[in-house]
């Protein structure tokens, strides 16, 4: 049982990391993150990078959907806008990678701002369909504005570098991803506990009452769209710089759905939940692939049964988690935490 956890002033109670225990585990986790690239092989690092991009994208979407309550089906498009913006800035305008990423975020934020305009008039499912428009509009632009995007051929992007040092392998890129993820998560975590984050949640829970509190719905909804798209843009820019190529097929509609799945499985309205969701949606299919490959080797002749089966398992896992804990993985996490805090009593 964890006890002796008393706070003496409000400063401590307002801190993000509330106890020595949390700090300890977080520290340990950080050490793990730093040591990870030295122990892992390319494939694990590749997946780790992908998880990183997914975390940034998912945190962004959660700010919009989980915190502000505006469902977006266009997240993939904003990833695409950021990706293309950075690719074009780097290859055509001669910007460095380091400058192109925040700029890509801004371009994407602007796109999000525009797509968010209907949110002032429409809500819920209607808004959902309105954001779907972004998918088609930007998808069309990626393919057909050939002078800029090279159409379906896509753009090859040189790896980021500092002086002569090139971030051209998964291991080197890992550091860029890690720092970006920490910045992105830290910013979001702070944002949601400050004035703006509270306003977002207020709009989600009761927009009428939010107006009484003097919250300008117009401004905050659009801010939410812009910030969310900024995150998506950064995630997209990092992703394609990592892949070294960008084509329109990187941003299918399905990707938007996957991002929604991430935050729903992880936990709506929770920064931690977005992280869990991103890990889940990236790592689980990958692990299942690995497992199915192993099983396949062990049972030759059965591969055409075993391999497709992984999708079924993945589907069941998602449904299973949602049935078991509709509030997402973060709720399971909270429950485990509560169990240890209260242990050995059950309530």
């Amino acid at each position: 049982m964890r006890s002796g956890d008393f706070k003496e002033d409000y400063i401590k109670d307002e801190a993000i990391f509330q106890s020595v225990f949390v700090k300890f585990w977080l520290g340990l986790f950080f050490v793990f993150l730093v040591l990870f690239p030295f122990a892992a092989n390319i494939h694990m690092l590749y997946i780790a990078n992908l998880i990183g991009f997914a975390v940034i994208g998912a945190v962004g979407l959660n700010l919009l959907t989980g915190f502000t309550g505006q469902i977006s089906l266009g997240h993939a498009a904003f990833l695409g806008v950021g990706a293309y913006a950075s690719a074009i800035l780097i290859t055509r305008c001669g910007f460095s990678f380091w400058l192109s990423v925040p700029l890509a975020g801004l371009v994407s934020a602007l796109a999000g701002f525009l797509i968010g305009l209907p949110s002032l008039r429409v809500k819920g499912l209607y808004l959902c369909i309105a954001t779907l428009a972004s998918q088609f509009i930007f998808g069309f632009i990626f393919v057909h504005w050939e002078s800029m995007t090279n159409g379906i051929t896509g753009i090859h992007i040189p790896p980021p570098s500092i002086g002569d040092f090139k971030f051209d392998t998964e291991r080197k890129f890992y550091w860029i991803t890690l720092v970006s993820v920490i910045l992105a998560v830290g910013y979001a975590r702070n944002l949601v506990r400050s004035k703006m984050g509270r306003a977002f949640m207020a709009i989600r829970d009761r927009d009428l009452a939010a107006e009484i509190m003097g919250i300008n719905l117009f401004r905050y909804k659009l801010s939410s769209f812009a910030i969310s798209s900024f995150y998506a843009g950064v995630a997209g820019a990092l992703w394609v710089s990592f892949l070294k190529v960008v084509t329109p097929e990187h941003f299918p509609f399905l990707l938007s759905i996957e991002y929604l799945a991430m935050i729903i499985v992880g936990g709506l309205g929770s920064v931690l939940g977005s992280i869990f969701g991103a890990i889940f949606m990236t790592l689980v299919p990958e692990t299942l692939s690995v497992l199915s490959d192993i099983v396949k080797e062990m049972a030759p002749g059965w591969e055409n049964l075993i391999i497709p089966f992984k999708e079924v398992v993945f589907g069941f896992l998602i449904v299973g988690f949602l049935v078991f804990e509709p509030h997402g993985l973060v709720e399971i996490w909270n429950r485990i935490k509560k169990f240890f805090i209260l242990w050995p009593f059950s309530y």
Partner: protein
Amino acid sequence: MLVNNIEVIYHNVILVLKGMSLKAYEGQIVTILGNNGAGKTTTLKAISGLLSSEDGKVTDGYIQFNGERIDRTSPEKIVRKGIFQVMEGRRVFGDLTVEENLVVGGHINKNTKKMREDIEKVYHYFPRLAQRKGTLAGYISGGEQQMLVIGRGLMASPRLMLLDEPSMGLSPLLVAEIFEIIQRINKQEGVTIVLVEQNARLALSIADHGYVMENGRIVLDDEASKLEQNADVQEFYLGLTEVGKKSYRDVKHYKRRKRWLT
């Protein structure tokens, strides 16, 4: 109906009711008094089976209705056994008309003739509803909505009706009207009624038996008329002191403590 020593837990961790017991005989009006959060609504939900939809469950004790155990039965089966809960907050189907709301309430009746009779019965008790039967339920006044949800409950031909704060937010005139109707329903239909109500005087005036609840358990119970005479009840629920009525202006300067001996 018998509730025996039940314990209710929400989300596996939050204990709401601890050893709560309650009895209601056929044809009685039983009222539960108590603070907000004492567990009155939870008790009603435990009886009607609606706990499960809020991730709560009865972990100890049992609930019997006409000798049959019902605490593990699903809500829709409980309704069919004749128990109906009228929830607080006037939950009408705002996009349906008054009459359609009643039809929905009577959906467990299979034949239309019985349905028609039941609707007429509701109009008999609530003549105001008959006047507004074609209006969308979202546009009728709060008092009429309260009447509608009670009427809708009546459509299920219940043997036991659980009423959760029927007077909330209603004008004095309407409160009187609704309580009178509740009494008539009880007398004429023989429906047993469990009433959760904040207006203690009113509740005790129509009830046969009263329970006082605090922190998830019953601290006091007696015949309604005796309860009305209890000094503690008089002070805490009826607003009477030794010298008679007191003004709300007086409470400003002191904060009382309760003296239940539990």
